[in-house]
């Protein structure tokens, strides 16, 4: 089963992602903060990491930096999920080693699923 690690602190957003991806062959692993996110990433080596940029302990940029420093996660795409304006999101994605970003709020489920599939297919 394809494993997706979701690092997100807001329960409603977690529920939304779980609902959108349920029944599609994904196992969703959830971390509510950065420290737990790193721990679960290293334990499960997921196929994709969805990373909220606003987390309660360290923010998503700092966490992406830790993850990118771990060679076991070299093959795992890390995607920022953010409500930042597009220009800022692009700058953060480029400088912090993310593989892309998904804009919040997630309004169109089909579009979101297509984005997830696209990141999973990217070599």
């Amino acid at each position: 089963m394809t494993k997706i690690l979701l690092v997100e602190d807001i329960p409603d957003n977690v529920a939304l992602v779980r609902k959108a991806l349920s029944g599609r062959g994904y196992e969703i692993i959830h971390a509510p903060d950065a420290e737990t996110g790193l721990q679960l990433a290293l334990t499960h080596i997921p196929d994709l990491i969805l990373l909220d940029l606003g987390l309660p302990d360290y923010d998503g940029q700092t966490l992406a930096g830790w993850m990118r420093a771990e060679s076991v996660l070299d093959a795992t795409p890390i995607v920022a999920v953010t409500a930042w304006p597009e220009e800022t999101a692009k700058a953060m994605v480029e400088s912090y080693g993310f593989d892309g970003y998904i804009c919040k709020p997630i309004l169109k489920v089909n579009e979101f699923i297509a984005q997830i599939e696209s990141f999973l297919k990217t070599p």
Partner: protein
Amino acid sequence: MPPTNPNTTIQLIPASRFSFEQLTAIYNQTRVDYMVPMPMNAARLAEYVNTYDVDLDRSVVAATQDGDMLGVNMLGLREDRAWITRLGVIPNTRRGGVGQALMESLMEQSSRLSIKFAMLEVIKNNTPAHQLFLKLGFYEVGELLILRRSPFTQHVDPIVADAERMDRTDSLVLVGRDRGTQPWTNQSESLFNAFEVSGLRLTLADGSRGWMVYQRQKFLLSRFAFKTEVGDPATVAYALLSHLHYQYPRLDTQVENIQINDPHLPAFYKMGYVESFRRIEMWHGTPPASLGMK
């Protein structure tokens, strides 16, 4: 929940009656829909309160008479200055006067202490909050930048200089000197209160010299204070940053509330920092003499 009528339903409770876990939960709920949500956990909030001299007895939580949480607002106090921070109203209870009630409560707390000057920062483009502060008599002072530098930014060799690392004690001696007017977060007291503070001092071949003080946490460099004693500030700052990032190549960096007219600023861009977002600094009342020395 419909908009709240403050005259009939709001009660204002001292924040000190809540645990850090409870305050964190309220604060995080007020920010869920922010573009820059900046959530906290209890440990971070406790550190925030300590670092920024937040007085929880004079900070307030708003709730309905039935005990439903509505919002929070916190008051920092230093000498004859006040700082308003962490103002937030839970999204589905906005537009009912909760924010104004929270603000007026803290302004009243300050007045009771005979404090006639208050400062705050508001995220640029947070129009409702900005409008509220203007309505309450705050005026704009300038813009503040929040900058980031990722650990993957291109490696930079240290500029040739006579450089010296400083421990906490030596660093805080320098921070205590005149650094001009600073936003609350960057005032000397914030660094005095912060953990893991150290510094760098250097002299360049042409005699330019300056120092920087910073906080080094496990994964993050932050809380920068700069001073150029002789020479061009951008040149001195670039040299200082080159030594800092050479020393800590794997650390993420966040610079908070650097003033947009700070003469050191070009060094940050040259060193690969990117802008995250901006805040507007606002003041209320006449700045006291103590502000200029911080």
